[in-house]
């Protein structure tokens, strides 16, 4: 029998419908892979095997009757940021110790309503703050990719490192993830997987643990462009419980796949060619331009003069919003409590022990930039710069550009506990230099695997689209996938 865990979601959907195998067999195959690999890769923080089998059996009953939703019987992993009823939901933080929500997030509710099966909760950077999955209370996730001839452990990127690693190592068919500054696209690029952050307002934020509310968006990580389109179609919805959820019907994203890109205008912003960027990243970008040109797209140079200010503005806006959102963790209503001599000391002790170093750093930055006398100099200025960043994009769309092509990351995956990156917090932040502009402007962005570097590690290209035009990203993304092929790490684990 074929290895069921090697299937794409699109293939499994057909196989289940044709009764070539059952969802229980499929689910068991993934549980087997998780049991074999998780001790080494640490992608899951909780495995819900019993629940998964029950959900699979329910799906099989529906499939037997020729019924079932768009994801009927498809086993998925869920990032620990999504509230899942009665199941571990801690944003991989110690401060949410023991938290099991009595409710379900809208995004996961949508997935279960469409028949998906939950395998468990995936590791991530604490409160989604990080670019290497090393800030998790549950320890780092290991990338299934290694450099050729090396056994050094590499990071899968972050914050959705567990999601990316689990997909790449065939520990789920696809995974939910979230992206505040690049947390879907950077891990996807580091693991040879596809990740899309949709337009702000496309997926409901209800039941997703908040980091920076004006930037956070949920999206999928999967093996192929088509699989990510299938998942996004189910995850996205119009939700009255989220006031920023936008009243636009969710289109059939799969319909865009396979459509010609003839005549589409693809913008190339020179400002994404950063000083000190490895030559390989630039070469990959040029290759992507050639592929799209060969497919009939028109390549145009565009100017994005405020690109380099996106990351500094982000490091004001995101910590400011985080410092407000994380004020709720006070040791009173849920999670960890560390006693003190009075209530204030209880708060201070709880938050000192419950939050990790990176989270504390961002809360302090956020508190400082919002404090009396500094608000205008930092927060207000950053919000004005954000207007200029968005205007750069608006001008491109006004000039008829359909999508923008850039590299996804300034490097391939790096080592766990990298001394240089940990010596200065800003160095780690630079990972998001190509992805963060998209969050600042609320736009959709997809990372598609496009090649391997000379040490054999995957690299991705990013496509940025107009608001609510995810369809064009899937359309163009498929052209890159067809030209580049797919990438599978050599198995050394499990």
């Amino acid at each position, binding site marked *: 029998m074929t290895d069921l865990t090697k299937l794409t979601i699109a293939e499994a959907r057909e196989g289940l419908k044709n009764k070539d195998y059952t969802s229980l067999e499929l689910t068991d195959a993934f549980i087997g892979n998780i049991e074999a690999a998780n001790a080494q890769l640490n992608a899951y923080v909780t495995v819900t095997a019993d629940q998964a089998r029950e959900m699979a059996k329910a799906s099989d009953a529906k499939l037997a009757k020729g019924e079932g939703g768009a994801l009927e019987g498809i086993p998925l992993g869920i990032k620990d940021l999504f509230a899942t009823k009665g199941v571990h939901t801690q944003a991989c933080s110690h401060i949410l110790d023991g*938290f099991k*929500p*009595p409710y379900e997030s809208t995004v996961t509710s949508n997935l279960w309503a469409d028949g998906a099966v939950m395998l468990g909760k995936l590791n991530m950077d604490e409160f989604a703050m990080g670019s290497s999955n090393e800030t998790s209370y549950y320890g780092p996730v290991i990338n299934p990719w290694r450099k050729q001839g090396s056994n050094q452990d590499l990071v899968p990127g972050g914050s959705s490192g567990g999601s990316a690693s689990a997909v790449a190592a065939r520990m789920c068919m696809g995974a939910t993830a979230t992206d505040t500054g690049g947390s879907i696209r950077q891990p996807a690029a580091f693991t040879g997987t596809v990740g899309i952050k949709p*337009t702000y*307002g496309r997926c409901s934020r209800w039941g997703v643990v908040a980091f920076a509310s*004006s930037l956070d968006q949920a999206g999928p990580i999967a093996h192929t462009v088509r699989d990510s389109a299938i998942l996004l179609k189910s995850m996205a919805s119009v939700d*009255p419980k989220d*006031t920023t*959820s*936008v*009243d636009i019907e969710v289109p059939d994203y799969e319909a865009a796949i396979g459509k010609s890109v003839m005549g589409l205008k693809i913008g190339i912003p020179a400002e994404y060619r950063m000083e000190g960027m490895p030559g390989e990243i630039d070469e990959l970008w040029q290759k992507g331009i050639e592929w799209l040109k060969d497919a009939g797209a028109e390549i145009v140079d565009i100017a994005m003069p405020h690109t*380099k*200010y996106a990351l*500094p*503005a982000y*490091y*004001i806006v995101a910590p400011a919003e985080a410092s407000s959102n994380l004020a709720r963790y006070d040791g*009173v*209503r*849920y*999670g*960890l*409590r560390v*006693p*003190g001599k*009075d*209530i*204030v*000391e*209880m*708060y*201070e002790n709880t*938050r*000192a022990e419950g*939050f990790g170093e990176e989270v*504390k*750093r961002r*809360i*302090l*930055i956020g*508190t*400082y930039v919002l*404090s009396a006398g*500094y608000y205008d*100099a930092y927060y207000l*200025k*950053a*919000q*004005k*710069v*954000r*207007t*200029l960043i968005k205007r750069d994009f608006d001008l491109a769309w006004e000039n008829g550009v359909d999508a923008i092509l850039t590299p996804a990351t300034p490097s391939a995956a790096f080592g766990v506990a990298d001394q240089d990156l940990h010596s*200065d*917090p*800003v160095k780690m*932040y630079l990972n998001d230099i190509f992805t963060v502009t998209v969050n*600042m*402007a*609320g736009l959709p962005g997809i990372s598609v695997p496009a090649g391997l570097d000379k040490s054999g590690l995957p690299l991705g290209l990013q496509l940025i689209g107009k608001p609510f035009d995810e369809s064009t990203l899937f359309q163009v993304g498929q052209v890159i996938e067809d030209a580049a092929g797919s990438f599978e790490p050599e198995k050394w684990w499990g």
Partner: protein
Amino acid sequence: MSVDTDTVKRVARLARIKVSDDDATRMTGELNAILGFVEHLDEVNIDGVEPLTSVVEQTMKKRVDGVTDGSKADDITQNAPASEDHFFMVPKVVE
């Protein structure tokens, strides 16, 4: 702009996070690295630019002012570190 150790302690107090003297010293350096980085924004001319308050041009949706949920005191207090009769228990705050 940069911060000194006393400012870090004051901000930590505002954020209700206990920091030791050693923590405060270490954090001062880290926070100054970040503040130094965000200072790049000083190069940008923002005269006459409106701050971005929403990335999507949409009027805030309003819901009907009605009761849609409730009677879930068990659910609400079930994750509390200390609760009694559907109240959250905290250290004494009034003498």
